[in-house]
């Protein structure tokens, strides 16, 4: 069983692409080999800045020969049919055998494929893999047609077993496979040859290349934390950065450097972001002061001066970077302390969307809505409005211009410097949340008010101008905004009518910005009906209200769709949510979810599950009878026509349930209501077992149908059980 080693050696591969590329290499090669009939015991993939590699052990030395028989047309069949069969089977007429079949003589094709040597298959699969490699971006170089992420220089492709190693010959546009590679660009640039994977990895290490990315990352983290620990400091954890840096070096050398005192007063996030984004430095924190006091840089080089020159150079670059950051911070502080007015003014020159006005217009709308919904989330309306007004001021600051990822956080610093209430400062940062399904949801009332207002404004606005998400396209992240609203409402237990909020926002957004909407409508009306339209104020209002309602219900069903996805992850079935959406108050998501949870709980019980069957049976019988008779059996069941005890017991059960359900529903106590509903199940079951609804006596029949109607109405008053599957 031979082992296979492949290395694709190139100029520097972008760090962010390496891991994925190594996995792709493994998958494409192993899939190709298996498809061609080879088997293997194990495979592994590796990457460094200059190479992708994979090893495969226990590979079969050749693929098995295969033999396949195919039955063809009858002897004497038209030539067309026979030719088609020959094409499909890939054989000639002379190869066909004639055999006796039940219906006479039939052609048979025997397709024999000999086994192939692993080396031949590998050469074919590797060439195909290289030519069709799924790089996110690839390029040509020199005058060749080959595409790779950066110029490809050499290929190792060797099969090795006890007898030794053998190069699998592959030639791709003049790059011939071999058994040699190179070490570190500066520390061991000469070529060397290898005999198998273990030899390859060991020789690379001697040539100052650590093949495994996780080993490099571990080494970096280990050295960095050790050096920091020796000074009583700690490295700020950043897994993304660690993975990236491990992809920038073949031979990591960790160097700990100083940050000049001038910059220690900058907010730690600013230091961290500037060092990470521009220089890919780790931040080193003093746990006592919580300040960032040092940095760690990872070089790809061992030098005679133990990195002194490298570190000095890096410190110099950092000094220039931080001097910029400090300049921004100090300029920003001046504006913040004076009340941020220039920032707010300048937002009127920034277009949010050409159909939705400027950032300033948008902020005005968010502030109005934040004020309105403040009571529902337990926030002070004054503070909510104020927070909404300043929450986006930092977008005009120099720091956020330089580092957009610091938006919100800088807002918090600046609002604090401006002397605003701490809840207002917090809202500046928190109103963007939650950004994703795993992001924390703010709980401070002012933050919740602004976060909700911001997202509802965005959704209503883009709905109004018909920029809804379609398929995989969601350029304005509206699905994320809707999920944000859902989580803000549910996790804070907020009772809020979304329809009211959306309609208020629609009136604010659309009328000033799409002021010609009415004019357009009136013109179209006139053209198509040849009658001029009454343009008095009342008609206008009706026009806008109708549009607002249409938009509201469309947007609400978008919310419902997102809610279904959200609740599905929490184990609540979509049909249960549908059953609840059909009820009043479905724009109050907290209520809607409470109802759905209670229903899910009830349906999980034996009574609940069986009641559904009873309900459906009652509903079916009723619907059929109503269709047949052309009347609606909705009322008038009278216990005096009840013949036997089972029937009387159902009357009693329904009376008892009614008495409980109505007050429970009024109190939004869905669990009690649903439990009361489920409690009628034994009576319903017994009724269907013992009583024949379609009795000969029309009086009895009508009374029983009306009784079924009571079951139906009772159930429907709790949730629309017709929507439940099963």
């Amino acid at each position, binding site marked *: 069983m031979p082992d296979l080693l492949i290395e694709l050696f190139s*100029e*520097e591969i*972008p*760090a*962010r692409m390496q891991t994925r590329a190594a996995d792709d290499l493994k998958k494409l090669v192993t899939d190709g080999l298996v498809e061609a009939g080879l088997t293997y015991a194990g495979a592994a993939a590796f990457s460094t*800045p200059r190479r992708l590699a994979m090893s495969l052990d226990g590979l079969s030395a050749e693929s098995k020969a295969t033999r396949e028989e195919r039955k063809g047309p009858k002897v004497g069949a038209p030539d067309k049919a026979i030719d088609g069969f020959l094409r499909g089977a890939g054989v000639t007429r002379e190869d066909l055998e004639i055999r006796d079949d039940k219906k006479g003589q039939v052609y048979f094709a025997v397709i024999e494929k000999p086994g192939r040597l692993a080396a031949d298959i590998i050469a074919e699969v590797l060439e195909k893999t290289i030519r069709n490699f799924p790089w996110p*971006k690839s*390029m*040509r*170089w*020199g*005058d060749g047609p080959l595409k790779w*992420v*950066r*110029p490809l*220089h050499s290929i190792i492709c060797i099969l090795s077993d006890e007898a030794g190693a053998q190069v699998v010959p592959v030639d791709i546009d003049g790059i011939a496979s071999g058994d040699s590679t190179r070490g570190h660009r*500066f520390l061991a640039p000469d070529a060397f040859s290898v005999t198998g994977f273990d030899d390859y990895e060991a020789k690379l290490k001697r040539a100052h290349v650590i093949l495994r990315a996780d080993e490099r990352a571990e080494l970096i983290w280990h050295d960095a934390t050790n050096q920091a620990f020796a000074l009583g400091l700690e490295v700020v954890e950043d897994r993304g950065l660690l993975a990236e840096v491990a992809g*920038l*070096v073949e031979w990591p050398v960790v160097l700990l450097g100083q940050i000049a005192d001038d910059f220690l007063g900058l907010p730690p996030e600013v230091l961290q972001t500037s060092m990470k984004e521009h*220089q890919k430095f780790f931040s080193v924190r003093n746990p006592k002061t919580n300040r960032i006091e040092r940095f760690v*840089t990872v*070089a*790809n*080089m061992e*030098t*005679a*001066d133990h*990195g002194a*020159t*490298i*570190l*000095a*150079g*890096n410190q*110099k*670059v*950092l000094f*220039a970077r931080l001097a910029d950051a400090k300049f921004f911070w100090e300029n920003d502080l001046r504006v913040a302390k004076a009340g941020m007015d220039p920032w707010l003014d300048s937002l009127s020159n920034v*277009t949010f969307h050409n159909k939705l006005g400027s950032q300033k217009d948008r902020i005005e709308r968010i502030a109005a809505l934040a004020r309105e919904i403040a009571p529902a989330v337990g926030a002070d309306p004054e503070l909510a409005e104020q927070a909404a007004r300043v929450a986006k001021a930092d977008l005009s600051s120099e720091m956020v211009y330089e580092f957009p990822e610091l938006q919100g956080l800088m807002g918090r610093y600046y609002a604090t410097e401006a002397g605003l209430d701490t809840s207002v400062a917090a809202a500046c940062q928190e109103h963007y949340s939650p950004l994703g399904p795993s992001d924390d949801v703010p709980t401070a009332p002012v933050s919740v008010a602004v976060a909700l207002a911001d997202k509802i404004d965005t959704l209503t606005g883009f709905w109004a101008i018909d920029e809804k998400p379609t398929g995989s396209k969601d350029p304005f992240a509206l699905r994320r905004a809707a999920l944000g609203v859902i989580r803000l409402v549910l996790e804070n237990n907020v009772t809020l009518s979304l329809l009211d909020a959306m309609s208020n926002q629609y009136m604010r957004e659309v009328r000033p910005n799409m002021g010609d909407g009415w004019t357009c409508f009136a013109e179209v009306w006139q053209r198509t009906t040849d009658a001029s339209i009454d343009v008095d104020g009342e008609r206008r209002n009706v026009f806008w209200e109708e549009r607002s309602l249409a938009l509201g219900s469309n947007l609400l069903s978008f919310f419902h769709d997102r809610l279904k996805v959200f609740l599905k992850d929490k184990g609540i079935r979509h049909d249960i949510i549908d059953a609840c959406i059909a009820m009043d108050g479905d724009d109050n998501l907290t209520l809607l979810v409470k109802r759905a949870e209670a229903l899910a709980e009830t349906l999980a019980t034996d009574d609940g599950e069986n009641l559904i069957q009873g309900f459906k049976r009652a509903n079916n019988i009723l619907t059929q009878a109503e269709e047949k008779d052309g009347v609606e059996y909705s009322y008038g069941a009278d216990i005096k026509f009840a013949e036997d005890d089972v029937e009387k017991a159902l009357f009693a059960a329904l009376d008892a349930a009614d008495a409980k359900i109505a007050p429970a529903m009024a109190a939004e106590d869905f669990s009690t209501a649903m439990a009361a509903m489920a409690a009628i199940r034994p009576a319903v079951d017994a009724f269907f077992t013992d009583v024949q609804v379609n009795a000969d006596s029309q009086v009895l029949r009508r009374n029983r149908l009306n009784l079924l109607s009571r079951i139906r109405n009772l159930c429907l008053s709790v949730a629309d059980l017709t929507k439940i599957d099963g």
Partner: protein
Amino acid sequence: MADKPRSFQEIILRLQTYWASKGCAILQPYDMEVGAGTFHPATTLRALGSKAWAAAYVQPSRRPTDGRYGENPNRLQHYYQYQVLIKPSPPDLQELYLGSLKAIGIDASLHDIRFVEDDWESPTLGAWGLGWEVWCDGMEVSQFTYFQQVGGYDCKPVSGELTYGLERLAMYILGVDHVMDMPFNDPQSPSPLTYRDVFKQTEEEYARWNFDVADTDILLQHFKDAEAECQRILEQPADDPKTGKRIIMAHPAYDQCIKASHLFNLLDARGVISVTERQAYIGRVRALAKQCADAFVQTEAGGAAA
């Protein structure tokens, strides 16, 4: 050679000597205002077509918005780039590049030199390529790009382009913290000159003109004129009625494209171009660049059959 250079000009001279020794034609700067060495027709146009090419040159470059009256240690509205373009890109271009660093006194065994992903795109030239920014001890010292498209054309063969930001690189090698303190010629010479002696005054003069004085109406008119002239040149029939020769005027047209591009930069510095207009202006320059590329590939230098 590996000893340290002593002045800005010595670094330039060493780069000239090095790339000449590697077979590049040492060209002179283009005699027009450009924002970067890439705009030189020796790069933009010569990257097109099938003919082999190898050139290196210094290009004075102007970025009006970067003017700081000569006070910022790193920012200038006028600075120098060193540009190398080799077509087809040779297989050892990285080694050649590292050799040039050695030539100007960067000892690779003492420093940390890295190739960090950086894809290059010029929306005004309709051009893009893949490559890296080269880091020396955490500082970007060069751009290294394999051109994939210019003026909307696939580059076949591919050119390798190297761009050195000369002031920044020289400051690092010479250990200078403020660009104005950098020795321009040999500090031991009878008349030692610093970068300040040569450029401080011009930085002030241009910064004032760029930001506050340049007449925007005139600039706007010049932009329109350059655009119109570029198109007019390209509309001329290929056959010259006077000489009877086939003369496609790709270069004169491209000059107008360069002019339009620089005028746009000046207008931008004057703050008269809004965010939405910006894209439109860039699109207009790109359209010119594209038409010039269309014209160039029909010429002999552009690889068309004579």
